[in-house]
């Protein structure tokens, strides 16, 4: 029997992996993948906690919304990355530092 705690562990693991990727990678696409992992960790939590609402399935519905929003966010992010590449000829976020004070 898979308990709620297992879900939460997996979710926490996904989240930590995502954070690690986001902070450590030198490639914007990989960072985007890390962000996707973080989002999926959150969606997994939503679905896992959905067992307390069997009547309305609110967890699952929110998860659906979140997935759609994540897809939208990815497309926007990819567009940004494309433009950044055009400007800087690189997608290494450390080299994109024109906003430095």
């Amino acid at each position, binding site marked *: 029997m898979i308990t709620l705690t297992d879900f939460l562990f997996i979710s926490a693991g996904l989240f930590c992996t995502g*954070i690690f990727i*986001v*902070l450590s990678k030198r490639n914007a696409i990989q960072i985007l993948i890390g962000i996707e992992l973080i989002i999926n960790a959150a969606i997994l939590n939503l679905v896992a906690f959905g067992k307390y609402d069997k009547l309305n399935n609110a967890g699952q519905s929110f998860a659906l919304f979140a997935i759609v929003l994540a897809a939208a966010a990815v497309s926007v992010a990819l567009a940004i990355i494309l433009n950044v590449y055009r400007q800087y000829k690189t997608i290494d*976020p*450390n080299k994109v530092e024109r*906003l*430095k004070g």
Partner: protein
Amino acid sequence: METALSYTDPLIIQLAIAVVLLPFAAFLINFLLISKTSKVSGWISSLAILLSFILSAIVFFKVWDKPHDIHVQQVWFAIGNVKVQIGLWLNNLSVLMLLLVPAVALPVHIYSIAYMAGDAKYTRYFTYLSFFCFAMLALVVMDNMLLMYAFWELVGFASYLLIGFWFTRDKAVQANKKAFIMNRIGDIALLVGILMLYAHYHTFDMVKLFAGDNALANAQGVDKAWLTIPGICFLCGAIAKSAQFPLHTWLPDAMEGPTSVSALIHAATMVAAGIFLLGRVYPAFNADVLTVIAVIGCFTAFMAATIALTQNDLKRILAYSTISQLGFMMLAMGVGAYSSALFHLATHAFFKCLLFLSAGVIIHEMQHLKQKHQLNIDPQNILYMGGLRKLMPVTFITCSIAALALIGLPLTSGYLSKDGILIQAFEWAEGKGWLYSIIPIGAMLTSLLTAFYVARLMFKVFFGESRLKEFNPDIVPEAHDGSLLYQIPMMMLAACCLFPLFSFNPFFYEQAWLFKGFIASSYLERMNLYHTVVPVAVNLLIVPVIYLAYATYIKRDAHWFKQQGVLFRFSYNQWYIDSFYNKVIVKLVLLLSNLTYWLDKNVIDGLIGILANIGILLGKIAAWVDEYVIDGILHVITGIVKQGGNFVRGFQTGRVQGYLVTMLLVILVLYVLKTFI
């Protein structure tokens, strides 16, 4: 006699106004339209004065000797209930002047066309001359004292402009300044007199004050002093304008102007304005003032005649002669010989104008001789003349006629007017005590002196041999009468110097028409011995006097008139009056102005300086406060902002992942704090 309002003829009024405005029109045209050296201006001015003369003659014949004065008025302005009116007041006196001024001005204008022909400021000369004629004509017809005063000033101003016409000469500038300042003394007195009368009678209208039965003398309830003082004030005005002692010294200096100007303004018309004023306001004088007038006139006449004896400058002699003759007129006014004074004014205008015009021609010729032979002489000095009789016959004849008129020999106009004054002076002094008889005797003496200095002038200028030969025996003096433009005016004036113009009987002044036009008086009858004795005595004495001059200056065998000694120097230096003024009055005035200058410089300027220094000090303090306090505060504030900005700037690394780490750390810290505290 009513206030003469009953008799007004619009035609005469319009003509009189036209007489006054024609020269003004010429003035405007010359001033605005004519170029600087254009010869048109002279003809415009002359034409205007010719028309003026014709119209004034018409006015004269219509007004002269009519029972009523002509008087029209119009409201000029009103202040509250007080209405000030202006208008014309034409009576015998003013129409006489109205005719006399253009009659003298016309020959002078024509003469000036030739005389000023080479001058660079030809148009300006005629502009001024027309302006003068306008002011003078307006002065004589005004009925309002205030406006009369204004024209009185304008006449003085025109005289100022013309004396200083050659303003590049320092002497001319000094002379016109002097004339202006000395006239100002009289003008102020005149203004005070006018205002005093206004204070008591509440009117500037001369007709109300002085005409007929409205005379001031009938005034009741007014203190006698308030009648005497305005009289004295009017007298002072006349003294300055007519160059009487003690304000006479401007007139000899005024000879710096062009000679034609001297002839018109400083011999015939403007200086006579003082006498005219006395005649106009005659009822304002009571017996005391009249005595003062007589004394001043007599003294001036005598003094100026003694000065004229020894002067060498041709124009200066004539100037002193003018002063002397004006003194005669004053004297006549003072002794009540009102009509004689005005009669003498009219005759004097002609013969003195003629003398000046002759002098102009003579000086002109002397100037030519000087340049031709390159002599270092003063062309006006009579000591260098002589023998001009044959060279300039027309000038000689006309000048002789004028000289005889000035001396007062029979058959001339001067005889008629001068003897009238002498006779009436004797009548006036009769029965008043011996002290009063000084005046007629002084007048008599003066006329003998006049004969002497005029004879001296004529002998020195026209007779004998040219004294230029003493410089260089080779000189053959050449001179001629000049063009017709010179000769015609002089002949016209010479004709006016003879008796027929004034009286059909050359010996009895009582029959002169001009004389009868004024106040009918007992003088008109040959009622006592004086009327016969005085003229005969004067003329009998004049003959030896002239012979004496002849003996002294031509034959040179009479030597009692010494060229040295106290009396000669006294006369030669013009009684030291000018020196006295320069040494005492001018010095006092200068001292006073230096004192005020010192006060101004040290006290007033000092105070202002202190105030200014206080201001500067305050300014410096404010500047210090501004620089160190206000600016300091601002610098501190900006410094803080700058440091803060620099500090905060450090966080902005531009590394997105760095921001994310920071954010996660903050959240972690918050959670930790939330959990454990």
